[in-house]
């Protein structure tokens, strides 16, 4: 059995396959595989008795359930008004230049993806960034790069 299949079967064995388990299951797959592959979505559909289109339609609605490959660490830079006012654009271009990727892209070693996010809820300490679930605030371009370098070592 493929790794994906095992992951899904284990989840369902533990939590059942009622419809309200769909989003937690998809989150679980993203946690392990960084994104939802076609194989994963097809397999989830089969295991839960749903159509693949239904699974894809649900997953693609949510910004944290990526249906395109993502790196191990997803860098989310807040782009909303309060962060915009505190020069988030400079941080974005510095990070982008440092990792040599544009927004939406993933580094060739599959370690980092760079995305822009809507309000992360740290407006008073703008600009803010998340790397996976970890939050960083009051960023400057050098500080952001230093943090990313620390992740690089992980």
């Amino acid at each position: 059995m493929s790794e994906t299949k095992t992951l899904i079967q284990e989840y369902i064995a533990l939590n059942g396959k009622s419809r309200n388990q769909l989003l937690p299951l998809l989150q679980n797959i993203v946690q392990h595989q960084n994104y939802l592959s076609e194989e994963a979505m097809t397999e989830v559909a089969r295991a839960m008795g749903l159509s693949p289109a239904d699974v894809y339609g649900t997953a693609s609605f949510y910004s944290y359930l990526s249906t395109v490959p993502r790196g191990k660490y997803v860098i989310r830079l807040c782009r909303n008004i309060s962060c915009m006012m505190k020069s988030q654009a400079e941080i974005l271009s510095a990070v982008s230049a440092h990792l040599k990727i544009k927004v939406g892209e993933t580094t060739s070693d599959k370690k980092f993806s760079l995305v822009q996010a809507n309000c992360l809820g740290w407006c008073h300490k703008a600009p803010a960034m998340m790397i996976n679930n970890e939050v960083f605030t009051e960023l400057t371009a050098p500080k952001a790069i230093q943090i990313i370098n620390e992740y690089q070592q992980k």
Partner: protein
Amino acid sequence: MESHELKRIDLIFSNYTTSKYKVLERTLQRDPDEIINELMDSGLKGRGNAGFPTGLKWKFARRNEAETHYVICNANESETGTFKDREILERVPRKVLSGMAICAYCTGARKGIIYLRQEYAYMMEHLQNELNIFHQHVKEFNFDFTVEIFLGSGSYVSGEESAMLDSIEGYRAEPRNKPPYPITKGLFDMPTVVNNVETFATAQVIFRIGAEEYSKLGTPLSPGSKLFTLSGDTPKPGIHELELGMTLQDFVKEFGDNNTKAVQVGGASGYCIPQKLFAETVIGFEGIPTGGSMILFNNSRSMYKVLHEYLRFFTEESCGLCTPCRIGTQQLLKGVEAVKKGERPVSYIDVLIKLALSMKSSAKCGLGQSVANPFISIIDNFKEEILY
């Protein structure tokens, strides 16, 4: 209007270190109808922004005799410029859980859910620990009520209460037709109370100090205090608990940088108030309500950029279900860009305003309906900046 110094209130975050669920224990001894009456007397209205009277919501849910009821805490705080629910859950989660438990006691719910936005996943462990402590206490109080956390997957519209229900049930977070409202037919078709994090925490405060004391704060139409989250051009960014019913003039005097040209009240879905209207604008349900978001802009800011960013935000977060919002948000964004570039005549702005107004009357949920708020208030007050 004469100016007043703003009084600082400290109810939400205070009186906590010694909190061992005493307020909850005491309140669970009381008669549910009496509890609901006290909440109605306090005049508490939903702190998410919609402002529905909380006591009335609980009363309607209580009246419903269905076997299963649910209590949901809306922690999908995604409005731009808002971060109060995050602070509440970090610093005083027991107040929120007490509010949920009292609501459950009054409405007959045995199960509660905290819908936590993905962006706040970093506090899962902290909340789970708090839930363990909470469950021990309610057990000691002989009250059968459990709360679990449902982690969101990233969507602004999930904060709309009926969309949130669909999300928990495993679907795209698309708003339902209303009526029926969740208090009649909510999660899994069962009566469900959905309240904001701050609303539950405030309910706990009301049961601690009493409705009479609480409603001395604020104004008759907007009793009480609430948390305001400040960002943008202010020397005092952060959370401030203030009485409702203040004028924007008093607010800016206290929190502005002496150069404030406008304040966005209520985030992207709120209103942009220019300096000339500060004195006559009241923050509260009799004037401009807010879920807490207050973003200050000084004279160095381009209001075109502000408007553009809000429209981009809505275009991205529109769930796509209803045409007025799906197409409308995109056309408003394209439209202001075209006018700015001179590809469309200045008069095209009037066409866009008509479109925004039709979204207000025809979009299915609050998201689509509210796009007109920033759009029209920014264009009305800063037309030159938008056009040229």
